[in-house]
């Protein structure tokens, strides 16, 4: 129902958008590790960035949809896989928002592996603030949101208070932003067309269920705002630029992508959908890599094309990857490649295939993760080209 109410467009080169806002699928593992990483350094103000990025994203999306009633904002929250939110008590001055189901409040613990010391539902708070602000004609940062209770730290429901504030500056999104110069990615695997893979994956109806969640491939998916992810990643690095720790920050963003790949890609390889669509076409690890790249190309991440693949080395080219386009749209030309999620993704893919024998469908438990991660011959990844730097495509090399 909600999928019909919010029709997500598939644009060229694997981009997906709703009401002028780019969307990407990501799992609870990535959502956890990204948030954990950007909050590691005290004093960067990243808590506010998380909430403001969420508020700006939902505000722009609701504005693009042309809806002003809370029922639509609540339905969108559910359709995108964030859970169940009740905005009905919010007046022009503020009020209390509740979440009876929350991706951020309830689904990150599988990735954390340890109890939470702090609430995890900053995105929910930003969403509530942005939706409330749009509905009441305020600027996107016109409400200050405070988490009063969060299920991640034991509450039976999430509670977020909103208080009106005079906002001097508002974060804005970049809409669909720039696109790359290449209009068609080369075909590097002839076994199945990208169009057919698009049709099969989008035909799965990956939108929120009756609880507003998207449990699929052994993970909890969200169909999330690309602006949100990009703002978190690049604002984190920008604020780290004079600390001498930026490179460490980049490594950890790549690690977040690695963990995302490991669990989501691993879950896709192990799924019934893989068996139905891809298994008959995959007779080697190399074919498995091409097949997975074609599935990734349906997730809103841009088109992934492997132009070289062997047990020692892979070259991945990314066409219209959401990270590079988002960076360019927000900050202009980059001095360094910025496709951290994709870099970690390629590393995860190669290690799954060549070290973890993922095509044999192993159990994706923590022991398996550690065994593959600690392998002495694991793949390293290097970014060699970037759309954000002016190249026609972004490129990542994995080798060992």
């Amino acid at each position, binding site marked *: 129902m909600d999928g019909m109410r919010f029709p997500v467009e598939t644009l060229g080169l694997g981009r997906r958008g709703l009401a002028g806002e780019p969307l990407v699928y990501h799992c609870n593992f990535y959502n956890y590790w990204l948030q954990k990483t950007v909050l*590691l350094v005290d004093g960067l103000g990243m808590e506010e960035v998380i909430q403001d990025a969420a508020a700006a994203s939902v505000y722009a999306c609701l504005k693009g949809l042309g809806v002003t009633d809370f029922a639509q904002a609540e339905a969108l929250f559910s359709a995108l896989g964030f859970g169940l939110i009740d905005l009905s008590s919010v007046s022009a001055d503020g009020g209390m928002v509740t979440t009876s189901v929350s991706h951020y409040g309830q689904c990150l613990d599988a990735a954390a592996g*340890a109890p939470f010391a702090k609430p995890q539902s900053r995105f929910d708070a930003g969403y509530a603030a942005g939706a409330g602000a749009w509905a009441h004609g305020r600027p996107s940062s016109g409400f200050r949101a405070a988490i009063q209770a969060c299920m991640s730290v034991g509450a039976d429901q999430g509670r977020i208070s909103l208080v009106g504030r005079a906002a001097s500056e508002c974060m804005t999104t970049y809409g669909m932003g720039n696109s790359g110069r290449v209009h068609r990615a080369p075909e590097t695997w002839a076994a199945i067309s990208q169009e057919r893979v698009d049709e099969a994956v989008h035909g799965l109806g990956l939108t929120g269920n009756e609880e507003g969640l998207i449990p699929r491939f052994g993970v909890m998916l969200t169909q999330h705002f690309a602006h949100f992810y990009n703002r978190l990643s690049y604002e984190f690095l920008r604020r780290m630029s004079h600390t001498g720790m930026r490179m460490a920050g980049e490594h*950890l963003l790549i690690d977040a992508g690695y963990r995302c790949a490991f669990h989501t890609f691993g879950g896709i390889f192990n799924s019934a959908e893989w068996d139905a669509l891809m298994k008959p076409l995959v007779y080697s690890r190399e074919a498995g890599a091409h097949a997975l790249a074609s599935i990734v190309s349906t997730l809103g991440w841009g088109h992934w094309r492997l132009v070289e693949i062997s047990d020692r080395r892979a070259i991945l080219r990314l066409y219209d990857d959401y990270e590079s386009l988002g960076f360019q749209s927000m900050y202009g030309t980059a001095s360094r490649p910025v496709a951290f999620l994709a870099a970690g993704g390629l590393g995860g893919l190669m290690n799954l295939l060549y070290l973890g024998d993922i095509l044999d469908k192993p159990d994706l438990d923590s022991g398996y993760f550690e065994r593959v*991660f600690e392998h002495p011959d694991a793949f390293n990844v290097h970014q060699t080209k970037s759309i954000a730097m002016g190249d026609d495509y972004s490129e990542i090399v994995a080798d060992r």
Partner: protein
Amino acid sequence: MSLDRVLSVDEVVCLALRISMASLNQIFPGNLGRLKLLRVVLKLGMPELKHMNPNQSLDPMLERRIRQALNEVEQG
């Protein structure tokens, strides 16, 4: 700890007080350990940790700070 060399004052104090003097490699073993070290670097705001000899015994005060930060980054 080998006793075939002259011990530093710190090492003598640590031996007397039965305080372990671990290296970064001992606290952060393996690939996962290296990533935990990066998280501790960010948590403590100490980029210089990345450039230390990973096999050198740590100053006990520094080791305590590192272990405390490690506990924090290992929480959810």
